[in-house]
């Protein structure tokens, strides 16, 4: 039994004719696990996270957090979770400390306990020195850190992060990803939504891939890439003797299928690093020159492409 369980969630806005944002989504997240919802914009990730944080009521289905229904026991669910929204949701004319104190009060914290926890969080997000400056004076990365800090105030058992790295510099992104891994190590259950394949791959214990409101695949990274096989795709162009090479390359060790389309050859190779020199060597032997080459290791992008016929970034 997972700490977070979604059971056939469905959300239609303005029924009966409105948009169906989530359509029969089910998944479970174990305690202490990082689970990423991966999908393009509009896939329904934010709607799922909104339902799990009791912000939206599902049209059908239910979800449980720590055994509490998001439909019937919203107050209990809310006290267990910390929500980091996609956009910065802070009071810009208040300082970081004032924001944290205010949000702490909204989580029911008061007095010395609140002040102590605010100090801890300011330390954690590395803003103790600038805690009294107004948030609107901060850089994008600093705002993101406060945005996350707010969700940590009440020591939640589960942390939801909705695309927390959108629009920030690489250094801040790295800091956020490291912090998330640290939260997981401390035992926090993390639900993370992103459309960045690399983030999902790096962070997640398990990944759910969403498209058009549906969960189209779910599993560990290894399980997902196995959907498209373990071979790398090598795509190349040559200036002449295409037919001769099409006959030679399938005979090389480590090369699987070879196909050609629109003058481009695609090979499935078991180990691209060791096979590439042989490809160049045989091309030279046949009097041809490789003019263009790309190698794509099996990854989530390929999985999404394989499942939907579209690139993840589309």
């Amino acid at each position, binding site marked *: 039994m997972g700490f977070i369980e979604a059971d056939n969630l469905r959300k239609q806005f303005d029924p009966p004719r409105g948009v169906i944002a989530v359509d029969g989504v089910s998944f479970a997240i174990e305690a202490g696990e990082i689970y990423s919802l991966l999908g393009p914009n509009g896939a329904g990730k934010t709607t799922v996270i*909104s339902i799990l*944080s*009791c*912000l939206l009521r599902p049209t059908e289905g239910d979800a449980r957090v720590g055994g509490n229904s998001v439909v019937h026991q919203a*107050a209990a669910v*809310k*006290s267990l*979770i910390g*929500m980091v*929204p996609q*956009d*910065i*949701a*802070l*009071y810009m*004319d*208040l300082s970081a400390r*004032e924001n944290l104190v*205010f*949000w702490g*009060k*909204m*989580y*029911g914290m*008061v007095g010395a306990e609140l002040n102590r926890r605010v100090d801890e969080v300011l330390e954690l997000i590395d803003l103790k020195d600038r805690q009294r400056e107004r948030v609107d004076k901060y850089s994008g990365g600093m705002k993101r850190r406060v945005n996350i800090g*707010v969700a940590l105030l009440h020591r939640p058992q589960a942390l939801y992060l909705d695309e927390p790295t959108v629009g920030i510099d690489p250094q801040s992104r790295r800091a956020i990803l490291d912090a998330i891994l640290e939260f997981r190590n401390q035992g926090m259950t993390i639900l993370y939504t992103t459309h960045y394949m690399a983030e999902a791959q790096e962070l997640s214990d398990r990944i759910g891939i969403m498209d058009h409101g549906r969960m189209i695949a779910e599993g560990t990274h290894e399980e997902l890439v196995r959907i498209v096989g373990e071979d790398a795709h090598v795509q190349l162009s040559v200036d002449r003797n295409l037919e001769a090479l099409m006959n030679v390359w399938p005979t090389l060790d480590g090369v699987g299928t070879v196909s050609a389309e629109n003058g481009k050859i695609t090979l499935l190779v078991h180990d691209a690093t060791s096979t590439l020199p042989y490809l160049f060597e045989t091309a030279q032997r046949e009097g041809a020159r490789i003019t263009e080459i790309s190698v794509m290791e099996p990854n989530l992008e390929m999985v999404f492409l394989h499942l939907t016929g579209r690139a993840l970034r589309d």
Partner: protein
Amino acid sequence: MIVRKIIAIALKDVTSTYRNVTALVMMLAAPLALAALLGLAFGGNDSGYSVPITRVAFVNQDEGRDSTRGPIALGTLLCDILHSPDLKNLLAITVFTSPADARASVDKGKAAVAVVIPPDFTASITSPDPSATSSIILYADPTQTLGPAIVRGITQEVADAFNGSRAVSAVMLHLAADAGPPPGQNGPNSNVTTEDMEKIILQTTSAYIQATQEEGFSGTTARGPQVDHQAKDPGIEGLVLSGMMVFFMFIGGANIARSIIDEDAQGTLPRLFTTPTRRSVILGGKMVSVFLTVLTQAIILLLAGGLLFGIDWGGVVPVALLTLNTALVSAGLAVFLVSLMKTPAQAGAITSGVFVTLALLGGNFVGSMPIGGLFSTIRRLTPNGWLLEGWDKVLRGAEAHDILLQLSVAMAFAAVTFVAGSLIFRRRFS
């Protein structure tokens, strides 16, 4: 815990508002600046309108007449009226013996207007002959407008009073004639003689003179809403600032109420909904913040009005009641209007339009000055009209019991709009 959260939300909003320079300008600087400008335009730091004193050259040629109560001279009465303490801040009278000297005084710019009472003034007014007429001559400096107009108004009013007295006497005599002789007496119906009529006119007029001399002249305030002469002078700054204060409290309230929509768009309201705080508590906190913000605004404006312009707002209890009332009306109206809007831009444009319209109808731009006629009826259709009536009374020294009607009607506006707005918001965010 619920109360703590409501207070936390309200204080957060109040803090945000009073850190916002634009909001401060709209809520505090604008009403004070407008009051200062209008105050300067109408008389600086005096405690009222500072209309320049008009110099009047007065010539009384009236020969008067004897009556059963002794000699009467209506020209002298008019002179006394112009000399009365009520008009000492408006008129400076110099008596001349000849009309030519009085006109010369005007021509030389020493007087703004000359008033000449003809010799037959009393005789004509007290004559039973309806065709008997007499004219007061006014000779005004054409470059002067306000002073001669004041003198003309006062003179006309006195003349109207004399004519009224004469008309009443004539009606009484005709009624007596129509009624016939007293019971038990025989004779024709018209046994009232011309001498009788003359006697009655003289008695009526002399009685009027006596009453006027005993009670004082109220000519300048006889028209329009009656003002208690014992009331304190509210001062132009007080009247203007009260109008500006109510208007800008409405605007200020709407800005804070709009923060509900702003927060929804900026994501802080949805984030609040993910905390273990009930939505009714969050919305309640926002409502309280609207009330606290406009209440603070009112207190600051009242204090600033007292310190900067020397405004005496009135008794503590009625001012406190009216301030609370104004804040409640502002909050209620703001919450209701904003609850009907979908976007911050829509809320900003529409609430501003509504408040300007209400201000025009309710009289905010003429302050809390009492204005008669149709306008006084129209302004009572608006909550600000009732509030301004209340402020006018309090500025003139009214006590709490004198403004109960205004307080009650304004409270009703506040209650209805606040409840309606709250319900709409609750339904919208449920």
